[in-house]
């Protein structure tokens, strides 16, 4: 029997989660004290889960890679968090949020999970307000909202352009409270390098490296939760933080957890364009800017050429000579189409020769009309910090001249496969937040990542992990002195020694940059069969070169940042191949996965629901063997599956 059992509860969609909670198993308060839980990652999902599990009385050990749990990359989320509160009275409901999310995901997400996400959305806002998260408010004193892509209602709650920061500090506060209380023990500057799975198949621990001392540590627990984020940094240049990586998930995959839909990568349409070889990361300009900014390129190709050469400025181009291509192509949603649609449209215009900026790989995001209509002070109040950040990086004033933006790697919808309980195919290994695959299908809508992280952490995992742990109360303390721990630690040490012993000539970053280039060119915004096959070959060649010729100076003692990076890039070199392989097998276009062979005459993504309406869950079979494809069929009982239409309402 395949291990793919999504364990979706019986009953009507709107009652499944209630039904689950009514019938799940619980652990009584005295027994919770006998149970240890490991949480890896302190972003929105990990931080909120660790705090909530601690409040319930479990012994929680939480691990983060930075010097403080407050610095996880959730902190960088700008625009907002969705909830179906319907405070503006504009027709929102839980069903509508669910529907928009499934449609935005191009009908490739699991219906029951997405519904539960929408159902939890309102409780998240309540929880965060109770914690003192300073959401934006109207003069009435009530909460303000704004609109995001893929929605026709105003359901996005926000704290200026720092919503992720404020929500994360809320979760960090809750976590700090539990650390003080003694229910949660904090381990900072630790990076997970392997998962420990016992002979009975259960996940029982992790191997981490102390990034200060270099020591390899063993930690055991009755269950492990990974909330380690996405793998966007595979591309080298992305909007992710520098230490964001895919290693925890990849190590779990190599220990038997299935990896689902790795090819679904989100390319965010509004980022500051690439400007040089030395560049280390890309910076996002929040999607919220599309509420008031209008995206355009010159209508005449000769104007575009002059703009690129610096002979013509945006303001010199008359209104009738501007092509507001999103408003032209998608009249119903205009500038607020979903991210995948907006990114592809920008690429289409630039590829056709209408791009601006020195490289021709940029489009204008223009606030002139909004400033004229609302005044500069209103725009400043809404987006001031984003405008400031843009000016610092680009050295240009967006109040005066339009911003220039281009798509960049931002988020990974793919991740470890989980069932309805967010449990992977390894019993006792749970996965939350961006690290799992479950709620966004092939494309995530804006302001839904924060929603998912907190829904998983505050309101799902404390229930589902308890259901798993209910029969673990008599197991007793899990020893780290076992052959499984020995084996895992030995494998980690061997990997480190091997990396340190190569002493080649290429730096880790130079190989990582080359990997990123291969991924962007062959497994990026537009993919095709030949390109993907070529990409796989190139990744393999590069992987071989890495293991022969990488230079990692220093030793395993103390701080060794090159070693940290090398361990991550080694895993990216494997994960990249799986991503390309997944993209190659999926002979359709869906959401963030666009195959050039599968498009409509108008250039829109063309799905193949007959053959590809499933989750592709890849199973590791050995380093020298091809991974096995397992399929979880997607069944839509509550939504009519259609071609996504953002042209008419």
């Amino acid at each position: 029997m395949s291990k793919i059992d999504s364990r979706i509860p019986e009953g009507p969609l709107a009652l499944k989660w209630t039904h689950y909670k009514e019938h799940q198993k619980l652990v009584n308060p005295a027994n919770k004290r006998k149970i240890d839980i490991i949480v890896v990652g302190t972003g929105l999902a990990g931080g909120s889960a660790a705090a909530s599990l601690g409040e319930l009385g479990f012994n929680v050990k939480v691990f983060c890679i930075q010097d403080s749990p407050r610095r996880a990359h959730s902190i960088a989320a700008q625009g907002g968090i969705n909830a179906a509160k319907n405070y503006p009275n504009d027709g929102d409901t839980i069903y509508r949020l669910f529907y928009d999310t499934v449609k935005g995901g191009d009908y490739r997400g699991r219906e029951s999970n997405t519904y539960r996400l929408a159902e939890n959305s309102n409780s998240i806002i309540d929880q965060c307000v109770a914690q003192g998260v300073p959401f934006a408010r109207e003069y009435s004193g009530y909460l303000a909202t704004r609109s995001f892509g893929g929605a026709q209602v105003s359901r996005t709650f926000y704290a200026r352009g720092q919503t992720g920061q404020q929500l994360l500090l809320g979760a960090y506060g809750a976590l700090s409270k539990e650390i003080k209380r003694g229910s949660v023990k904090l381990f900072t500057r630790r990076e997970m390098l392997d998962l420990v799975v016992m002979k009975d198949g259960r996940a029982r621990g992790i191997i981490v490296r102390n990034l200060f001392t270099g020591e390899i540590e063993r930690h055991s627990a009755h269950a492990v939760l990974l909330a380690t984020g996405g793998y966007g940094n595979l591309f080298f240049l992305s909007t992710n933080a520098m230490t964001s990586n895919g290693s925890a998930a990849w190590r779990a995959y190599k220990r038997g957890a299935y990896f689902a839909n790795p090819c679904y990568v989100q390319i965010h349409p509004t980022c500051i364009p690439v400007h040089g070889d030395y560049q280390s990361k890309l910076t996002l300009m929040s999607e919220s800017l599309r509420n008031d900014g209008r995206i355009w390129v010159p209508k005449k190709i000769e104007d575009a050429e002059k703009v690129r050469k610096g002979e013509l400025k945006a303001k010199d181009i008359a209104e009738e000579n501007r092509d507001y291509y999103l408003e032209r192509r998608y009249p119903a949603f205009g500038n607020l189409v979903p991210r995948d649609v907006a990114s592809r449209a920008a690429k289409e215009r630039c590829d056709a020769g209408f791009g601006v900026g020195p490289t021709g790989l940029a489009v204008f995001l223009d606030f002139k009309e909004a400033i004229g209509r609302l005044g500069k002070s209103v725009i400043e109040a809404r987006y001031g910090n984003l405008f400031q950040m843009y000016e610092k990086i680009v050295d240009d004033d967006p109040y005066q001249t339009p911003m220039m933006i281009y798509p960049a790697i931002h988020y990974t919808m793919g991740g470890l496969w989980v069932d309805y309980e967010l449990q992977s195919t390894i019993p006792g290994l749970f996965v939350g937040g961006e690290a799992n695959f479950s709620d966004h299908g092939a494309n995530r809508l804006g302001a839904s990542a924060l929603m998912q992280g907190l829904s998983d952490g505050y309101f799902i995992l404390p229930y589902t992990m308890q259901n798993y742990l209910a029969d673990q109360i008599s197991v007793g303390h899990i020893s780290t002195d076992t052959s499984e721990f020995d084996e895992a630690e030995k494998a980690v040490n061997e990997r480190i020694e091997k990396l340190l012993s190569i002493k080649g000539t290429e730096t880790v970053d130079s190989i990582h940059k080359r990997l990123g280039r291969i991924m962007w060119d062959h497994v990026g915004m537009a993919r095709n069969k030949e390109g993907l096959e070529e990409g796989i070959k190139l990744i393999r060649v590069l992987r071989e070169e890495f293991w022969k010729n990488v230079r990692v100076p220093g030793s395993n003692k103390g701080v060794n940042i090159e070693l940290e990076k090398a361990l991550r890039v080694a895993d990216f070199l494997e994960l990249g191949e799986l991503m390309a392989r997944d993209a190659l097998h999926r002979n359709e276009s869906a959401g963030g996965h666009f195959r050039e062979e599968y498009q409509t005459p108008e250039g829109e993504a063309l799905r193949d629901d007959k053959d590809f309406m499933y989750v592709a869950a890849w199973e590791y079979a050995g380093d020298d063997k091809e991974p096995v494809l397992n399929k979880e069929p997607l069944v839509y009982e509550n939504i009519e599956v259609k071609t996504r239409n953002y042209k008419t309402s």
Partner: protein
Amino acid sequence: MDLKLKVWRQASPADQGKFVDYQVHDISPDTSFLEMFDILNDELVEKGEDPVAFDHDCREGICGMCSMFINGHPHGPEKATTTCQLHMRKFKDGDTIVVEPWRAKPFPVIKDLIVDRSAFDLIIQEGGYVSATTGGVPDANAIPINKENADLAMDAAACIGCGACVAACKNASAMLFVSAKVSQFALLPQGKVEAKERVKKMVAKMDELGFGNCTNTYACEAECPKEISITNIARMNRQFIGAKLS
């Protein structure tokens, strides 16, 4: 641009440490300060030398991880800017740039430019939160909050916990950091219930960890990359006195 760097190198917490001179060449003015360090480190690795260890993560000015003391200023010369958002166009060709770690007793140096800021976590753990547990809270719109206070709370909550205020202060005082968190909750009805205990415990912890007192030099406000206002310290002092008297 060609630049001369004087960088603090310290192999371990126990090592005495010293400045080491480096040269970097052909740096684009559009390079960020940390990217300039990436270039330096790439060269050091190629030469088989130990790269300079420094903290950084998001590189968009929000995580609070980066922490370089540049030419006598935490996060360098540009106002309201973290090190990661500082660009080389703010320097001139041929400049000498001195780069040190945060210097404060409660922030011990771990290696080169990396310091240990866990002391900030310990202060927050004393009460830098509202003790609402998950679930069982009222509807978000049940508590209207006037916009002025909500905005002031957000101003205070914008602190990124980088520690520049401590590094800037001759007393290594953490008053701006602590007062930002105390103020956020003092301004919101949700924070009122635990207000007195919060301010007493957080201040006591700050003192216990060895942070100095505030002598009103305003250096913290001037150097804060998020422009956290010194009025938060005044608000915390009022809270503290009120809590002690009651």
